[in-house]
Structure formats: structure tokens, C-alpha cells
């Protein structure tokens, strides 16, 4: 295996044992980027000089005990503020913006010794599920360059799938980690809302946004979650619940675990290959000891409406600070999607419409939370397809004014309820496009989710497949 193909744990092991140096590892990652990123276009900004300098330092100090990510090249989605390094949210308004502070997530990565490879492309302002609505360029899916990687963390997912980094960070408001992970065949973990600090994450939907890891293996996701989770004094919505060392407690679990299969997530709207592969995975989990039962959840079409209203309302307010006075360009530089979302959100909050739209949506949100509470009294976890289809071709989002929200129909409910969910690869379509399976759990159940995901990963080989680049 080549160095850039390693997982985080494998790379850690190699570095510690002295099989290779951080400088070599980071150097090879950048070589890989130079070779194939012109085809994929996952990166907006590269951090090569600084990364190599950090790698050299890592090789000198070698404090592996104190720094769990020492020398590991990580890519970060371009909506996380990185001090001194351009941060754009893939928007023309922030085209030249250089933050003067680090997001808490970035601070934690640096403290852990991680090497920042660069900032990855996304749908502008995270408004989308394709990365096609980036104001700069479209990222391509490493499995098929004529297809989209999903979004909005498409750049991060593509970078991981194409081995242009050892691990990456994304963010999810509703689907933006899980869905690109599904389309790119990687692991993507959306934690419980409030688990990881949002300080320094360019806000989209404040009551929904969750930073999370996109990785090659389930164990890597567990490691990153442990490093990034925790209460932050600078984010009043972070949870005080003490975070466990997820990796340490990573023993596979499936025997006796009650798994709910919502019939609403397995309808005719889902692509045939997706349904087939997800069913195969469910059968395998049953064979391994999982107790499968069918459940019923509130029709996800309502979640799409709720999510559209709440997210766009919060977006309209969160994007009000971009007026070109203290930083960035003027508001005329907003792209079409951003303009649409801001205006719809302004409307749903406006006088005379607030009750009918925003207030109503927040009430239905309560119903959705209660619906999950009820379901989790019967089952421990819920499993289903992550996305209704495999990666769609480039150009699929044109003329679809709710593309993002409709694509994410299977993940919006859990996002609205603040629940954790993971995507793992469970097969490939006949065209060799990855198919994603999602595992959702009640709040704070990341450990169990990771353990079940690990069981599946250990019983299958999907995660070892690499795209042909």
C-alpha cells in the first residue's frame, strides 16, 4: 500500500514505529494532490509550505503520546476559519478573506499535532448537496469524473476517497457529511448536535450545523470524534456531557442490538441498486446477530418542508453580516442559490408569515423529535439508505430549486432532531458508484453507532476498494 492510501490509524502506527517520517508522508500526499487534483478539484486552497514545515517539526519533536494526530495530513472544509489561511465557504464574497482566528475544531486539530493540508471545496455557504453550486468550480467524484461527489462537504469527501489526505473534516446541516460520504464511498459521521463546537464554523443553519469527520475507516472517525468533541466556552450550544474516548471503547457490537428499518426510507423513490445493497447489508447484520424489525416514522416529506423553512430562515439571518464593510465583497456577489435561500428565509420569517411558516415548522420539528423518541423505545438504532440514489451526473442540479433539500430527504429528520448518524459504504452500483448505508441513533449514542458500524466494516471489504485514478 502506498503511504497516501493509509488510514489515520495505519499512518499513526507507521510514524510511531519509524517506518516513515511525517515529512515523507506529507510530501507524498502533496505529490498525490499535484497529480490528480486537477481532475478532481477538491481543494480551494493548499497549505503546502506550512504543512511541510509542520511535518519537519513533528519529526523532530515526536511527542506522539501528547499529540494523537502528530504528523497526520488532514483536509478541512472551507467553511472552518483557519487563521492566516484563506477561508472562502466557496463563495465569491469571501474569495479573498483571511480569518484572524482559528475555529475551535481547527485549534483542536493543531493541538493534536495534525498537519493542515488545505481547504476543501463545497457548495457555496454549504447550500447544497452536490458541490456543484460552489461559486468557484465543481468538484468531481473520484469514482467517476463525470459525476458529482455530493455535498456540501463534497471536496472533503472526494479528497478522502482519492487519498489526497489521510482524513478530513466536514460539516453537516442536513446531510452534508453523510451524503457526500455515501456518494464517495467514505465514512462520514454527523455527531449529536452540540457535541462538537461550532465556533469558527461559518454559520448556515445555527440550530442544525454539526462539524464532523470524513474518513476512510470507522476507527478513524472514532479517533477524530474523541479529539474534537467537548464543551467549548465560546459556543453556548455545546453539550456538557463528558466525552468518552470513543476509540478506546471500540469493540464491535451487533449481537442483540435492536435495529429499526423505517418503511418510509425504503420506498419506490429510492434507486433500485441502492435498495438492493442496503437490504443485503441489513441481512448481513441480522446474520451477525442484529435483531431487525420494521418500524414506521413520520413521512420524511414533512421533514423536507420543515428543514427548508428552518434552515432558510436561519440562513437569511446568518448571511446578513456579509455587507462588505468589515471584510469580504458586497452582497451583489451572492450566487443564485444563496439569493434564493436568503429570500425564501426572509419571507418565512416576515410579518404575517412567521406563524404560518417558521413557527409551524418549529412545532412540526417537535413532532419529529417525539417520533424518534417513540421509535427509540422500541429499537436501539435505525438503519436505512443515506441517499435515494448513487452519485448523479454533473449538471443534475440545474433547474432544481430545492435540489439540496430533496436529495437529503432521508437524513433531514435525524438532523432536525439533533441525532447522530454515520454513513458507511455498503456496496457499489453496476457502474461502480458507491452506495451508502446510514446508522442513526438517539442523542449521545455515537459509541454504539460506531461499534455497529465497525462490526459491519470488519465483515465486509467495501472500505478497502479504491477508485481507479
Amino acid at each position, binding site marked *: 500500500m502506498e503511504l497516501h492510501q493509509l488510514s489515520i490509524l495505519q499512518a499513526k502506527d507507521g510514524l510511531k514505529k519509524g517506518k516513515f517520517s511525517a515529512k515523507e508522508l506529507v510530501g507524498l500526499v502533496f505529490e498525490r494532490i499535484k497529480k490528480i487534483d486537477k481532475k478532481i478539484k477538491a481543494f480551494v486552497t493548499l497549505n503546502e509550505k506550512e504543512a511541510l514545515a509542520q511535518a519537519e517539526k513533528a519529526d523532530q519533536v515526536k511527542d506522539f503520546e501528547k499529540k494523537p494526530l502528530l504528523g497526520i495530513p488532514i483536509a478541512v472544509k472551507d467553511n472552518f476559519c483557519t487563521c492566516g489561511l484563506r*477561508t472562502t465557504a466557496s463563495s465569491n464574497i469571501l474569495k479573498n478573506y483571511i480569518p484572524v482566528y482559528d475555529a475551535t475544531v481547527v485549534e483542536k486539530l493543531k493541538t493534536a499535532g495534525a498537519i493542515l493540508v488545505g481547504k476543501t471545496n463545497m457548495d457555496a455557504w454549504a447550500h447544497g448537496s452536490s458541490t456543484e453550486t460552489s461559486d468557484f468550480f465543481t468538484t468531481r467524484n473520484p469514482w467517476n469524473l463525470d459525476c458529482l461527489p455530493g455535498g456540501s462537504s463534497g471536496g472533503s469527501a472526494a479528497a478522502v476517497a482519492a487519498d489526497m489526505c489521510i482524513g478530513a473534516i466536514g460539516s453537516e446541516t442536513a446531510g452534508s457529511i453523510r451524503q457526500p460520504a455515501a456518494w464517495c464511498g467514505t465514512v462520514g459521521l454527523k455527531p449529536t448536535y452540540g457535541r462538537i463546537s461550532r465556533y469558527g464554523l461559518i454559520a448556515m443553519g445555527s440550530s442544525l450545523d454539526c462539524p464532523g469527520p470524513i474518513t476512510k475507516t470507522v476507527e478513524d472517525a472514532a479517533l477524530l470524534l474523541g479529539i474534537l468533541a467537548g464543551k467549548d466556552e465560546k459556543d453556548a450550544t455545546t453539550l456538557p456531557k463528558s466525552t468518552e474516548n470513543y476509540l478506546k471503547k471500540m469493540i464491535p457490537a451487533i449481537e442483540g442490538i435492536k435495529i429499526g428499518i423505517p418503511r418510509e426510507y425504503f420506498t419506490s423513490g429510492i434507486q433500485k441498486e441502492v435498495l438492493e445493497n442496503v437490504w443485503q447489508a441489513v441481512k448481513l447484520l441480522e446474520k451477525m446477530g442484529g435483531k431487525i424489525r420494521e418500524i414506521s416514522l413520520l413521512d420524511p416529506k414533512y421533514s423536507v418542508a420543515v428543514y427548508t423553512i428552518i434552515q432558510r430562515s436561519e440562513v437569511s439571518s446568518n448571511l446578513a453580516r456579509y455587507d462588505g464593510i468589515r471584510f469580504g465583497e458586497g452582497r451583489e456577489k451572492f450566487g443564485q442559490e444563496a439569493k434564493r435561500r436568503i429570500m425564501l428565509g426572509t419571507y418565512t420569517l416576515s410579518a404575517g408569515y412567521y406563524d404560518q411558516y417558521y413557527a409551524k415548522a418549529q412545532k412540526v420539528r417537535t413532532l419529529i423529535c417525539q417520533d424518534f423518541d417513540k421509535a427509540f423505545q422500541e429499537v436501539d438504532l435505525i438503519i436505512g439508505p443515506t441517499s435515494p440514489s448513487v452519485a448523479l451526473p454533473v449538471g443534475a442540479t440545474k433547474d432544481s430549486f430545492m435540489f439540496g433539500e430533496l436529495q437529503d430527504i432521508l437524513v433531514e429528520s435525524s438532523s432536525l432532531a439533533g441525532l447522530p448518524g454515520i454513513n458507511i459504504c455498503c456496496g457499489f452500483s453496476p457502474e461502480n458508484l458507491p452506495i451508502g448505508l446510514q446508522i442513526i441513533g438517539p442523542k449521545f449514542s455515537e459509541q454504539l453507532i460506531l461499534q455497529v458500524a465497525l462490526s459491519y466494516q470488519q465483515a465486509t471489504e467495501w472500505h478497502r476498494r479504491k477508485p481507479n485514478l
Partner: protein
Amino acid sequence: MKISQIIIGLEIHIELKTKSKMFCGCSADHFGNKPNTQTCPVCLGLPGALPVPNKTAIEWTVLTGLALNCQIPKFSKFDRKNYFYPDLPKGYQISQYDSPFAISGWLELKNKRKIRLRRVHLEEDTGKLIHGIVDGKKCTLIDFNRSGVPLMEIVTEPDIRSSTEAKEFLEKLQMIVRYLGVSDAEMEKGQMRCEPTVNLKIEDGNKEFYTPLVEIKNINSFRFAQKAIDFEVNRLFEEFKQTRVEKKAGNKTTRGWDEKKGVTVLQRAKEEASDYRYFPEPDIPPIEWTDKDIENFKLKIEKLEPPDKKIERFVEQYQIPISFANTLCQDLNEADLFQAAVKYGRKYGIAPQLIANIMVNKRIQYKDLSPKALIEKINLLSNFTVSEEEISHMAKEVMKEFPAAVEDYKKGKIQSLGFLVGQVQRKTKGKSDPKIVQKILLEKLGN
């Protein structure tokens, strides 16, 4: 036609003197400082920044509410008020809309009238705008030092009936917040801002009419508040006589007070009800008080003697004129100093009235003095009204009363002199100059 009633409501903003700002750790003490030196990603509204509320600011708002006889709802939250203006970096102000920290209070005036308070809530202040000219073109310059400073907003019901009442209300409110120690409330420094809303009830024969509402801005002293209201009352009456336009939804106007010309000037022709699209602030969890929390807040207030009670007590207890009591009670520290000085001054027979007189008329710089130091200074200053003859007479008496001390002194015990001087001081109620007393005693003892 005559004015049968003047109707005034007040909207007051008070800057809290917390150490740090409302949602971040920047210093809140901004007045007069170099522009943009007290800002951070949060109060500058930079991408990714998040607000975290200042617990002290919240507590002070609840305490102010209690001092104003308000009810404290168990549940409150912050909301976003969305609008665009260059002094508002996030494009929204974090404020409170429908769940403020305190509601339904009142403040009683001298004439026993109770002015009802609708609410007391907490929000963040905006930056400061300055009009300027750069490269020959008019522009606006912005200083964000003040952005994010905690601001308490107090809204009264339209219960005030005259400009004098309005002035009294403002003065009382100022004293209360100073007493609580939550604000210095200097109007000239912008720490207390007032916007009166005025309209009139007019009687013509047996018919009644209400004039449209007018909100007055740009008032920076209590005196101007009174003048502006007086001006506006007249203007509204004259205008009604001309136009006969009555109060209607949407015809409220805003006028700015021009202190140079002594008039109000129309700022907006027609009120366009701004659509602020309030919604609950998703970045800040709500606040829920337990019964115990509210009990504790109430205890804190009970410990504090309200200013008008204090003034009454000073007049009675110390037999000082009410004007003196008023001045002394303006500041809690001054009032405390006075009381301590009175206690200490009893030893020297120095009357409370004298101490009050000296402090009020600033005959001594007492600001950083301890009570003891103050009394000593007063001692030096006070008139030594007793004549040398009287002192001589008293000295003789004292020497007769305390022969043992006289003996001791003659035997060489110098401290006895001091004792004898003290006795003469006592007899003359401190009004004899100790230097002269000593001189006379020495003369007599020498014999």
C-alpha cells in the same frame, strides 16, 4: 378647544457597567477610547463567531426589574432583531422580544402617582457612526468599540402626564440604577438614553380627540427631556388646531430634538413599520429560573435600602435638610461615608449637620478619605468658637475636677496634659482650638 390630558410614555436605554461586553470578553468600558481597539470576532460580527451571554448582565437586569417592582417570569430567552444598518455588524441585534427578563412593574412619583412599567429587557448596543468626508465625498465612519456593550431597555406605559413627571421619573430611575451599582447612567456620556413618546387628548366642546403619537429622539439630558416634551406638547396642539388629524394606526412620527434651536424636527414623514423578523436566538439556550433563584434575587434587593427611603431616614435620623439628604444619597458610597463619619464624629462632638454641610458644599475634598480622616479634617476646619477667656475658665474647672492628673503632670507624666486638653475639648464640645487649650493649660500648670 383645550388639552385635557398629556400622554407620555418613555423608552429608556441604560448601559450596564459590566467589565466585559454582553456576548464576548472585550472590555465594556468604551467611552472616549481609541476606535476599534476593543473588538473581537464576536462583536465585530466576523464569520463563524458565536455569542455567549454575560451572566452578570443578566443578573443585574433581573435585580433592576425587582427594584422597579417587576415580576420575574420563570422563562426568558434572547431573540434576533433583523435589520441592516452599518453600526450593526451581524445584520441583526441580539435582544429580547416576547420573553423579557422582567415585566409589569411600577415606580411611584412624589405626587403618589404610580407609573407602570411594561418591561425591562436586555440587549446589545450597536457601534458608533460618525459622518465624515473622505476624498471630498461624504461617507460614514464606524467605531465598533461600543458594539456588544450590554444595554438594558426599560419601557413604561403611557402613564406620565407632564414633562415634570417625566423628569422626576428619569431622575428616580437614574438613582436606582446607581444605587444598584449596575450603571453610572450619565446621560451626557450616553450611558442613559431616553426617547419619550408623546400625544395629547384634546377636548372640544363635549367631543374628545387624540392627536397622533410622536417619538422624540436625540435627547441627552433630563433638562432637554423636559424642554423637548414641553415644546412637542405645544406643537402637537397647534398642529391639531390646524389639521384636525387624529391618532391612527401607522401615523406615528419620529422627530429629533435640536438643542441649539430648541425645537423638534421631523425625521420621517410616515412611519414604515419595520419588519424585524424576530425569531428566537438559536445560538443561545433559554433561561429558566427556579423558585430558589428568584428568592435569591429578591433577597439581594431587600438588603438594599431603596433611595427614597434612605433620604427620608437621613432627614429624620440626622435632622438635616432634605436638599442635603438628596445630594448625599445620590451615590451609595457617599451616603455610606456620611453615616460612618457621623458615628465617628460623635466623639468630637461634631454634629451631623456640620458634616452634611461640609460634604454637600464640598468644603473638603472627601472623595478618597476614610471616615476618620474626614472627621479630622472637619475638626481643623470647623470654627473654634470658644474664646480664650472661656477656655481659661474651663481649664480651671478641669484642673479642679481632675487633681490627680494635674499631680501626674507635675510629676513628669506628659500624657496627662493630653488628657486634660481632651477634657477641655469635651466641655467646650470640640469648639476650642486644641492648640490654644494646650497653651493655656501649660500656663496654668506651670504655676
